[in-house]
């Protein structure tokens, strides 16, 4: 019998790792940096720069103001494409979950959508829309939409119909059923979709930026490649990873803890 509770009583006798879960995350990051540092010592810096020069370069980029310019461009495209895909997916996913015909109609579209590589979409979008903001946003949208739709579709199918029937028996109105009974059951699926949607969106957007745009992280990585500076390639990659880590631990994890708090009540 083991309790996952983090109350003071449970902490008694627990190891330092159990008492301070943040330490484990920190140790994990430190280990990665140490391994990177260790390996980099065996290679010339032009091939594999170590963490110390890379982070020094990251700092330079931030101080120079370039970081903000390119980060804003990339994050803007990621967020626009993601929000668009999310909104459309909620509509289509729920429709598929509640309507058998809609499910049959959209399923092949999704399978096709999932099989088209992001590189192909990036090229197509650039040829359609030219060098504009529309191209990367469209690419992120078409790549994410089938993936997020699948998530929401599955979440809708997994809804517990017994509690919905209960709510109807007690004469709860449609708005109340959706707000208090349906959405809370979908939240875990929405969070999962957000998490992997955002991480995929950034991988997609750098391809579009690399292929045909003149700013953004992808463009800067490509530019660094042009001047053959491995240090800059690493620095730009790491700088975006830092932003994603901040989103994960500063936004998504706390949000998840708040909306899924009731699950922790389960005593095993």
């Amino acid at each position, binding site marked *: 019998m083991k309790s996952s509770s983090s109350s003071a009583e449970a902490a008694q006798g627990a190891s330092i790792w159990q008492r301070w879960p943040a330490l484990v995350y920190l140790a994990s990051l430190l280990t990665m940096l140490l391994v990177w540092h260790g390996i980099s010592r065996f290679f010339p810096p032009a091939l594999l720069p170590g963490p110390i020069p890379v982070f020094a370069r990251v700092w330079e980029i931030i101080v120079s103001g370039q970081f903000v310019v390119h980060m804003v461009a990339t994050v803007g495209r990621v967020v626009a494409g993601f929000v668009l895909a999310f909104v459309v997916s909620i509509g289509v996913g729920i429709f598929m979950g509640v309507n058998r015909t809609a499910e049959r109609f959209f399923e092949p579209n999704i399978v096709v959508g999932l099989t088209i590589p992001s590189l192909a979409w990036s090229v197509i979008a650039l040829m359609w829309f030219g060098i504009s903001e529309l191209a990367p946003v469209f690419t992120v949208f078409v790549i994410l939409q089938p993936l997020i739709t699948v998530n929401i579709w599955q979440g809708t199918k997994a809804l517990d119909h*017994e*509690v919905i*029937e*209960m*709510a*109807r*028996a*007690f*004469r*709860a*109105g449609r708005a*109340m059923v959706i707000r*208090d*009974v349906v959405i*809370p*059951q979908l939240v875990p699926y929405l969070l999962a979709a957000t998490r992997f949607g955002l991480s995929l969106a950034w991988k997609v957007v750098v391809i579009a930026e690399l292929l045909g745009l003149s700013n953004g992280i992808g463009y800067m990585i490509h530019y660094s490649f042009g001047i053959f500076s491995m240090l800059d390639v690493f620095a730009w990659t790491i700088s975006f990873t830092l932003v994603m880590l901040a989103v994960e631990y500063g936004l998504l994890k706390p949000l998840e803890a708040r909306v899924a*708090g*009731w*699950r922790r*009540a*389960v*005593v095993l």
Partner: protein
Amino acid sequence: MQIALRGIHKEFPRENGGTLAVLRDVTLTVGTGEFCCVVGTSGCGKSTILNIVAGLTPPDSGQVLVDDARVDSSRIRIGYVFQKPRLLNWKSVQDNVAFALKASGVSAAEARQRARHYLDLVGLAQFEDEFPLALSGGMQQRVAIARALAIEPDLLLMDEPFSHLDELTARGLRAELLRIWQQARKPVMFVTHNALEAVYLADQVLILSGRPATIMKTLRVGLPREREMEDPRLLALQREILDALGITPATAVRQ
């Protein structure tokens, strides 16, 4: 308030395209303040009767009448206790009860107050801030009972509410239910496959045949309240129900 079912028929479509007749000409009356038990074997359509009364399932034909007038199924207030607790696991115990109250139009402030009162009535006052999954099965079912009672229903529907509980817990809850019912005096329709439970609780026991279900026999339990489960008169009535259902006495293996 009196509830009557007249000539209810119900069929359900089957996967293979045919239909499954579940209810055939079900006619019954539950009098004002009467505790009515519906007994039948598993899967005979007992729950369908309750769902029709609750307005969740429309009958193919027949009528549900309240006080001899055709019922607008949204007009009467119905408290429903299901076989499983069916709680909203993401809401606290108190909010679960308050949910039903708000659904029936009670203001948020009053809902909180009444939720507390009814949780106290089922002995769960100190658990009101817990999430349902932190409670035992018996306690969760008590929350479900508090939820059904809190809306002060015109009619209480109960679908084998104690069948998932151990006998000790079930006995306690049956006695509690009778105590609360005797104060409120609202009609109750209680579905069970437990014949002894039926005669212990009911004024009137309706015995259903197998599918398609129809009412085979009506039994009046005229015994005074404060009944004992082990009362030989109850055991005799239980025997009568089992005989009607065609269940022969379990004869001990003799040498």
